[in-house]
């Protein structure tokens, strides 16, 4: 069950150009949050809609969010300072389902943060994290402190392995024995991850992004076309997702 609450920002850290990490004292909300869920945040008076931000981590009363400045809403969030209070609705959505065994986490860009909480919640985890450029790499040390193997790729080749996540992903699927793959990132990346997992017959869960309205499943604007047992339907990214079984998503 979500709560509507106010939470003070304790710390703001710049992780990369245009990317900040907000650490909040969220006494009511943080203990409820599960990996893959999100919070819907009010962004001042000028922005009518809240903005959905994935939970990067939740520990005790502390809630960590990572925000990339893209539009007006994320600009508002990026400009917050310690002591500022945010109006949060959450935790919302259906998160990652994590069982026994070793999980492989695949993150792309600003899709990386929610995998950190997933990594901490999995019995064992490895990670492949892909970024556009060397200076866009975030949270690498955090993942290294939790995961076994961590592979970083950059498209400009300035850091880690050059290229995208697909190559290392296939190698790891080939050599390792994974209970599942958990992925979050841009849609083309998720599709490639889903295809690789299908080829290696490893269960894959993907966290999708879509423009949202209410955030709670009532307004139906964040639709995702899925198919299950041959029956197509529109499901709600905010309520039925954001995490879906990859094989059910109509790419």
């Amino acid at each position, binding site marked *: *069950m*979500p709560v*509507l609450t106010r939470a003070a920002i304790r710390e703001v850290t710049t992780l990369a150009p245009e990317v900040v990490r907000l650490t909040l004292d969220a006494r009511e909300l943080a203990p409820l949050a599960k990996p893959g869920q999100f919070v819907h945040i*009010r962004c001042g008076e000028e*922005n*009518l*809609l*809240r903005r959905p931000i994935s939970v990067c981590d939740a520990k005790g009363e502390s809630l960590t969010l990572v925000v990339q400045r893209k539009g*007006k*809403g994320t600009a508002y969030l990026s400009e917050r300072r310690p002591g500022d209070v945010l109006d949060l*609705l959450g935790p919302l959505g259906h998160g990652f389902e994590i069982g026994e065994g070793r999980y492989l986490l695949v993150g792309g860009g600003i899709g990386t943060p929610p995998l950190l909480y997933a990594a901490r919640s999995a019995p064992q985890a490895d990670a492949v994290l892909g970024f556009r450029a060397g200076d866009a790499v975030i949270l690498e040390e955090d993942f290294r402190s939790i995961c076994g193997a961590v592979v970083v790729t950059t498209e400009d080749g300035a850091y880690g392995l050059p290229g995208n996540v697909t190559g290392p992903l296939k190698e790891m699927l080939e050599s390792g024995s994974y209970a599942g793959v958990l992925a979050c990132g841009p849609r083309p990346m998720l599709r490639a991850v889903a295809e690789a997992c299908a080829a290696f017959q490893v269960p894959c869960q993907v966290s999708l992004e*879509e*423009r*949202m*309205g*209410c*955030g*709670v*499943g*009532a*307004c*139906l*604007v*964040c*639709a*995702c*076309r899925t198919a299950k047992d041959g029956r*197509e*339907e*529109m499901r709600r990214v905010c*309520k039925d997702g954001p995490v879906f079984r990859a094989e059910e998503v109509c790419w």
Partner: protein
Amino acid sequence: MADLSVNFAGVPFKTPVVVASGTFGFGREYAELFDLSVLGGICVKGLTLRPRLGNPPPRIAETPMGILNSVGLQNPGVDRFIEDELPDLKTLGTNIIANISGDTVEEYAEMAEKLSEAGVDLIEVNVSCPNVKAGGAAFGVSPQGAAAVTRAVKRVSKVPVMVKLTPNVTDIAEIARAAEDAGADALSLINTILGMRIDIKTRRPVLRNNTGGLSGPAVFPVAVRMVWQARRAVKIPICGMGGIMTGEDAVEMMLAGADIVSVGTALFRDPLAPLRVTEGIARYLDENGYPNVSEITGKVQLY
């Protein structure tokens, strides 16, 4: 405290605040956030005779103080609504208003018959959805179309019928009168205003449907004006909506001529907006010495 109850088209409402169709689903999600029995009523997500998948995403775009949506009447169809959703809705202790859209006059009538039989409190006839080709504005933009649908629904409905008007017309008074003459028990307005946004980087519309319906504070003055025009044109009660965010907005809408008001887009900013709107109305009534909320309807003092 002032009496907030209203008799609307013969249906008792404990408060004049209802939630707008399409913003509240079938109530299940917001029931996790507040006690829905405090609402005057719930207008459920727009229903069609058969299930609809709706339009492809993106279905929403933010605009200055508004949103454009192009959901396209995604719904499970009237039969599944009656079977899966209505039984729970009827236990909530608030009025249930079924919103219906059809491709033909006959479809409207078939749905109205099923729903009034199933025991909804009111039927809202949507002749104003801007996001699907049929089943909406096609009927609502002409007096003849609005009247034909209204007559067909009235013939079969055992419960009061409220006709939801589109603002995308030149003369709202003419359509309002046509609906009243055809037997409508009430009107609701405004539905969304047809709009469009374009991403100048990609030169693509922001909505996958190209156009969508504008709602939120951006449309509020248009809604107030149209409710006022409709009030002058008809005697039947009016549910006023369009960008109401606060109790003060609701009072303004009622002064223009609304008997009850509907809150929609405000929910996306503040899920508890209907409660705050209700409190705001009560405060205004107390501060201004009105013992009953219906006393402010249409009380704008014109120049």
